[in-house]
């Protein structure tokens, strides 16, 4: 019976996702049975779930290698597991794992340690994975909703904290609004092509006359929705508030996992269905990218809160990543992939240090709270410096590599002016990142003790720092991986 509708490949492709869902439900159930002090077991369960999903994906990959297939299509073309999707899968897995590691002690201090946190992260991960491998408008839309709704709840997870509530509400309202616009754009795409399959839509659009107003309208609405999700200017207003208000571990998560997922979605949309209309969206994209870099970088300069500063810097990074799409060649797409990969490590690392600063009587997210960190915890200070250097794009850290490919792609596609603007903002970025460094290294410490780092935070810091340096110093294997992650 079932086999009429489903094939073995369908199950194979979905196995990691099914596992994650089961573990998510499992965490919610077992959490009821756990005492307060055993709550960390929920985190462990969630990590085990991620581990299983990872092993499963590893097995799928090796099967694909043996069979020498580059992609698996499932559910009659609604889902396509290719190198692009697999690459993003690993970014999601890493960011979810680190978000869980960071949360254990943090949520205890916030007195909001509930298993739902871990379950929601797993659900969000499911949404992200499907978003990266989906090739059908309905699949994509549903996975997008699964992801963002989980993140809305996580943003407001500190239910007694006003900032967190406000952030969640703002994020929810603006997010719903943007989803509406996106849905409208998708309906136009459907109307143009009579199909929800991305490739069929692409074909239908390529048949339309150049400068067709309906195509233009579809491009604008879909792009608006997508720009909202990645936080590009002028659709970025939700981002700083959401980042500042959310629990720091979730800020770290949001800035990496869901953002990478939104980018995977955006790339698929722009390369496949909207690909034939490239000439129509290119000027729009250039404008958005430049505005995003400009606003992100200039607004970050005057922030006094580390989370807010990193939020604005996150906006500026979106601008850089969009530049890769502007050039649209192989190097550019490679650059986007590398950028998202290194961004996952360096940004989560920076947030991990902010999480480590949290104590019962100190929120620790003001720049001034970091004064004299070098005296108290040289390790934390030096690691933070490495993350910030990497975010600014100074070699030999990983961040330089991402920027390197983006700049090179701009040169290759003859966008010299854009390249000059992009490199000059590196100096602006360095200025605000080094405000934090200056406070950490050159100010006298205020009299508080840094709590000993929790094991979860230690692991997270160790992994992110190691990867930031390894990718920076020996990037060859990572470039190889990314080179295989060809076009979506």
């Amino acid at each position, binding site marked *: 019976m079932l086999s009429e509708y489903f094939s073995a490949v369908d199950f194979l492709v979905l196995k990691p996702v099914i596992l994650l869902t089961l573990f998510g439900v499992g965490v919610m159930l077992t959490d009821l049975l756990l005492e307060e002090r055993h709550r960390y077991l929920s985190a462990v369960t969630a990590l085990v779930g991620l581990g299983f999903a990872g092993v499963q994906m590893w097995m799928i990959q090796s099967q694909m290698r043996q069979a020498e297939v580059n992609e698996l299509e499932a559910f009659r073309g609604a889902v396509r597991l290719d190198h692009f999707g697999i690459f993003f899968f690993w970014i999601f897995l890493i960011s979810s794992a680190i978000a869980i590691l960071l949360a254990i002690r943090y949520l205890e201090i916030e007195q909001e340690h509930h298993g739902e946190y871990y379950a929601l992260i797993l659900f969000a991960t499911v949404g992200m994975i499907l978003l990266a491998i989906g090739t059908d408008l309905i699949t994509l839309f549903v996975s997008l909703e699964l992801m963002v709704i989980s993140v809305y709840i996580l943003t407001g997870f500190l239910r007694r904290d006003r900032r967190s509530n406000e952030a969640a509400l703002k994020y929810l309202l603006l997010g719903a609004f943007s989803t509406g616009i996106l849905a409208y754009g998708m309906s136009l795409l459907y109307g143009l092509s009579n199909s929800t399959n991305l490739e069929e839509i692409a074909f239908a659009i390529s048949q339309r006359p150049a400068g067709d107003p309906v195509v233009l309208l579809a491009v604008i609405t879909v792009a608006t929705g997508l720009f909202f999700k990645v936080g590009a200017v002028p659709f970025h207003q939700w981002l700083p508030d959401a980042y500042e208000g959310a629990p720091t571990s979730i800020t770290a998560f949001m800035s990496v996992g869901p953002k990478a997922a939104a980018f995977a979605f955006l790339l698929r949309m722009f390369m496949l269905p909207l690909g034939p209309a490239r000439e129509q969206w290119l000027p729009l994209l250039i404008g958005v990218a430049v505005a995003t870099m400009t606003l992100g970088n200039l607004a970050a300069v005057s922030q006094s809160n580390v989370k807010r500063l990193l939020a604005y810097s996150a906006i500026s990074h979106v601008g850089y990543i969009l530049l890769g799409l502007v050039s649209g060649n192989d190097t550019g797409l490679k650059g986007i992939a590398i950028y998202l990969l290194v961004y996952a490590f360096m940004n989560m690392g920076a947030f991990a240090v902010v999480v480590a600063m949290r104590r019962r009587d100190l929120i620790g997210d003001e720049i001034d709270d970091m004064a004299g960190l070098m005296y108290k915890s040289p390790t934390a200070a030096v690691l933070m410096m490495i993350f910030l250097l990497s975010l600014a794009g100074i070699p030999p850290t990983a961040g330089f590599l991402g920027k390197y490919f983006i700049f090179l792609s701009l040169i290759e596609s003859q966008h010299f002016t854009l390249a000059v603007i992009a490199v000059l903002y590196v100096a602006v970025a360095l200025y605000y990142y080094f405000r934090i460094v200056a406070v950490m290294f050159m100010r006298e410490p205020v009299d508080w003790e840094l709590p000993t780092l929790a094991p979860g935070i230690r692991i997270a810091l160790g992994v992110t720092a190691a990867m930031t340096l390894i990718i920076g110093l020996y990037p*060859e294997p990572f470039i190889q991986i990314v080179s295989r992650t060809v076009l979506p």
Partner: protein
Amino acid sequence: MWFSNHILSVVLFLPLAGAILLMFLPKESKDLIRWTANVAGFAGFLVSLPLVFWFDSANGEFQFVEKASWIPSIGANYALGIDGISLLLVMLTTVLGFLAILSSWTAIEERVKEYYVFMLVLQAGMLGVFMSLDFFLFYVFWEVMLVPMYFLIGIWGGPRKLYAAIKFFLYTLVGSVLMLLGILTLYFWNHGQTGQYSFDIVTLSNMTNLPANYQIWIFLAFFVGFAIKVPMFPFHTWLPDAHVEAPTAGSVILAGVLLKMGTYGFVRFSLPMLPEAARDPRIVSFMVTLSIIGIIYGALVSLMQTDWKKLVAYSSVSHLGFCTLGIFALNPNGLSGSIIQQINHGISTGGLFLIVGLIYERRHTREIAQFSGLSTVMPVYATLFMIMAMSSLGLPTLNGFIGEFVILQGAYEENWVWAAFGAAGIVLGACYLLWLYQRTMFGTIDNPKNKDLKDLSFREVMTLVPLVIWAFWIGLYPKPFFTVLEKPVQKIVQRVRPDYYAARGVPAPAPRAGLNAPGNPAQTRGQ
């Protein structure tokens, strides 16, 4: 032998190894840290000595070459090698690096461990810049070295240290990211021509048929990067701040070595990689004008200073103006004079900063008006100061004279007006240095605080003696230095002005594989 095959790597990584070792020492045992750092610095100098003896100056190619694949997919290699130009700068770095560390013994009391770690990392970064034969690797070192310098100024600097540190960092960074775009454009062009991704400096220096308008744009991108570093006239404003606020050793390194990276960049990259742009009359007159403005302006501003250290800082602008003037005379005399003058500047300005540092450590002020008649209480100090000042102002028998003379010779060959301005700069240089010397050393001691100043200790003398010896060596017997430079300079001149040697009836240097592209008509005439 392993050592002789990897000597450059050893020289490069020894300071880094020292820095890593320091990180594991307890921060309370300051003397242990000082000894370790000094030993590491001295060892760094010792291992670099064989370079001098093993270097074959008859060979114009890069020597001690090491090459290992690093990032094959983008064509970046770990490639090191030196020619005569880099040899001199590497030696300058190892000598000044050690002296800077030695001079910090009593000057640095706070956060000693971090200080020496940053010094040694900085040392490795600078050496890497001069040794790299791969543009990607070069860029990595070029940027890496900003970080320790930022901290050296920012933590151990004077009252406005934070401002000076970030200003230094941002200025240099703006220049270097624009330079990165230039590098990427060259790289991309080379790929389009040969189908191969390569950052190899030798390959890129032999590229032919890069269109002239591309060359000009890339030249300008490089120019911003290097001119800020030198610093050339309108880009010099970071320098006085950085120098005045930096601790003594920081200033020594900054003036002695860091500024040379800019001039080195012009010589190593701008000229051979972009020959048409470099000989473009507009570019040449632009560069020479900025150099001359730098020479005169730097000297005049020095004359006006009331702060001892700021005076020396501005004199750097003037002296580096000579170096760039020499480079853009684009003839063998100008170029080799410029490189000699870069070494000279490292010796004499490095020495002068040490001199200022010694008095600052004693009196905690650098106001020139606070001092007079110091020669009566500190005769040794006064003598050493005299030698360094004379070396800086270009007295014959000392090094400065040789460099400036040869540069002026080169400049005169092209245009006597350039030489005339240069000579005026030398006169002004004599003015501000002699006046400084007169005001501080001669006369009677008016200020009671200066009455009991102690003369130099043995360690302090030893920080200056090597520089004095080197100054006399170049002043009295500069031949070895010019011999070392001869081949690489010929190579550059031949590349930038293929008809230079032919027009003067001088036999051109023997063609080498790769350098002279076959079918270059100017080249054939040259032989």
